[in-house]
């Protein structure tokens, strides 16, 4: 089902923030939303926590605890921090077995599981490719084909070996590295949401760079939290609105980082199956489900599948709602896939 361009959001709905350098397909920052916001830079973006319904001291205190948790996760998951767990994995897992604390072990296991379900469209082992294409250095370069073929030898979730009993992983070949960038933000938001709940927070929104969001409970008035999905090229144009309660939402979009070489545009979302930047016909894929790590990972995978691939993949999805935006008849449209109830989609 394709949906045409939507009218401007109704009064009272959340509006998008001003366009940034990287236009986002979903966003929050309501003009009539006056609750406290606590923010911190982490994982290469800004994390914002909007809270409602508690006294100010507890609100900000709980939010600071949640942001502390995000910072702790960044310190353990970043491949750029020399004493992080991911650095340890990348340094040692090609040489033998590396013991991991349970949450990190299960996260990597879960990531590999998603890789299997998406036939490799999502893959945390594509770090060698990301480096080869210059995206870690924020430079962007087109490697020669042989270099890509060589890097592909070190890519593939199937080369991660797991020992469930000992919580250990290893790589079955040299040169492999993992990068949790496509799932870590969602995981961090899940943990932050757990932290807020532990402090009794019942109404809150956590946003990681406006590309992954978790909505705790409802608004103070009992309404679901509402978010717009925008035209990625014209973020001021809202295509549809979705509603969340105790759910996460993630978006992957064509308008994220890119570089242009010899007139061709190369996006930073690499396809681990080909070794090249995605040439998908999807402009943005938005996934809504119970956890941030799932929405984060699946939004990337579905984005890479293209419209037809996404339709086929999502036809059997349970407990997950998907919204694609793409061009149809010279117009940006959005289409919902997956497990929807009409009430969830007040277009």
């Amino acid at each position: 089902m394709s949906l045409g361009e939507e009218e401007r959001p109704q009064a009272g709905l959340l509006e998008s923030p001003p366009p940034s350098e990287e236009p986002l397909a979903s966003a929050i920052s309501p003009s009539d939303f006056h609750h406290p916001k606590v923010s911190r830079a982490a994982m290469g973006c800004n994390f914002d926590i909007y809270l409602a319904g508690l006294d100010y001291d507890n609100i900000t205190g709980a939010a600071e605890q949640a942001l502390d948790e995000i910072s702790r996760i960044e310190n353990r998951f970043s491949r750029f921090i020399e004493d992080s767990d991911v650095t340890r994995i990348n340094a040692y897992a090609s040489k033998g077995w590396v013991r991991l604390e349970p949450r990190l072990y299960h996260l990597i296991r879960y990531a590999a599981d998603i890789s299997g379900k998406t036939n490799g469209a999502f893959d945390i082992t594509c770090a060698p490719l990301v480096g080869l294409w210059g995206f870690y250095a924020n430079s962007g370069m087109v490697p020669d084909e042989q270099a890509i073929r060589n890097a592909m030898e070190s890519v593939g979730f199937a080369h991660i070996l797991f020992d469930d009993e000992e919580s250990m992983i290893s790589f079955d070949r040299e040169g492999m590295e993992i990068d949790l960038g496509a799932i870590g933000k969602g995981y961090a938001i899940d943990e932050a949401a757990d932290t807020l709940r532990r402090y009794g927070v019942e109404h809150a929104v956590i946003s990681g760079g406006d590309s992954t969001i978790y909505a705790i409970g409802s608004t103070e008035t009992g309404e679901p939290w509402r978010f717009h999905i925008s035209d990625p090229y014209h973020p001021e144009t809202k295509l549809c609105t979705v509603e969340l309660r105790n759910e996460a939402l993630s978006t992957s979009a064509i308008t994220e980082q890119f570089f242009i070489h010899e007139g061709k545009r190369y996006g930073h979302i690499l396809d681990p199956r080909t070794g090249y930047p995605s040439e998908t016909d999807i402009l943005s894929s938005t996934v809504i489900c119970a956890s941030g790590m799932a929405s984060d990972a699946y939004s990337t995978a579905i984005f890479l599948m293209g419209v037809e691939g996404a339709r086929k993949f999502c036809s059997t999805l349970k407990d997950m709602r998907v919204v694609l935006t793409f061009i149809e008849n010279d117009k940006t449209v959005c289409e919902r896939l997956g497990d929807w109830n009409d009430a969830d989609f007040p277009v």
Partner: protein
Amino acid sequence: MKRTIAFQSSDMSRRDFIQGAAAIASAFGLSLSEIAQAQDANPAASRDVRPVNVAFIGVGAQGFGVDFKRAMNVPGVRMVAICDVYEPNLNRALKDAPNATGYKDYRQVMDRKDVEAVLIATPIIWHAPIAIAALESGKHVFSEKMMAYTIEDARRMAQAAIKNNRILQIGHQRKSSILYNHGWDLIRNKKICGVVTHIRAQWNRNSSWRRPVPPDTTDKFWNWRLYKETSQGLLAELGSHQIQVVNWYLESRPTSVVGLGGIDYWKDGRTVNDNVEVLYEYPNGIKLNYTSLTTNQFDGYAEQFMGKDGTLIVSEGTGGQFYREPNAPLLDWMKHPVGGKLTGEHKEPGLLLDPSATKKLNKSGVKVGEMIINGDVRGKDDYQLEMDNFFNSIRTGAPVACTAMDGFEAAVAVIKANEAIAKKSRVVIRDSDYSI
């Protein structure tokens, strides 16, 4: 699988214990490569390590967020028991260790014959009773800092370790830090500061130190650090780490202390000071000026060693810096600093052992200040190295980085400083105060 356990000598006397601690301190600064090699030098063998059954007591912010995870990163650690009086924390940890049994009363853990090591990250008033019970039941103990709420409690912990010939490691993780061991080498062996005469150290924050309270518990329980009956305040929770570093670098301990403190800004019902300023005297007239603020974060946290030939600043947050005094010797390595050059306020020559430079110490073969690291500890922070050290000691009998004596001497210095603040007078710290 071959099981080999090498413990400390069973006839180790109290005197040996104390001297052993000093000897370990002396040796440790020289053996950075050994630290590195003690880690995952041979990851292929990590599946074959001897399992160690562990009980974890106190899975709150520090316990679960830091120590539990680092312990579970260590090959062979089997978490078989978890204890916490706060049920949500207990259940959270049990989710990550499904084979562990949950307890609310630590005494039940002591009855477990299969538990070889106990990790303690409770509020400070519980360190001693739990640690002593564990040591008496033949278990090795890692206890978070500060070692204990009273000097007598800390002393009894050390005595229990000696009596039962068990390992007791205190959680001053800087003792396991590559950076801090490097700083030790620069001060003690390279003598880059010459004769050290003064030390400044501070841990400054701009926050109330008060945590939000979950709806199912009480402020006194959750914010135990803020109340005298459960906390020795800023000096214990923050300062003990840094005082331990000064003791270590000077290979000494304070002989007297004066101090001031007060509840001067956060008048929110707390009973521990929200700011402290203390001045310790060490042998040979060396002074340590220590400050901890909660109203201004300038300078963050660091220890600054000032000697006739230069000033070395070490910090977990910002790494290391060295400022050479104008007429001090210019060593070859100072001409080619890894981290770049800087000059001080008065244009004194400076050498930046900045975070990027000092972190490179974690890479094999990196040379900073004539120090070459031959091992490889990438991916391990100070907490991880500390936990690796503890379990390595259990398996091999190798010394722990932060001994009971290290923790005890830091605790004595802190508690005496709080006494000086309360009495508003100089307190002498005698050798007998440091005896166990």
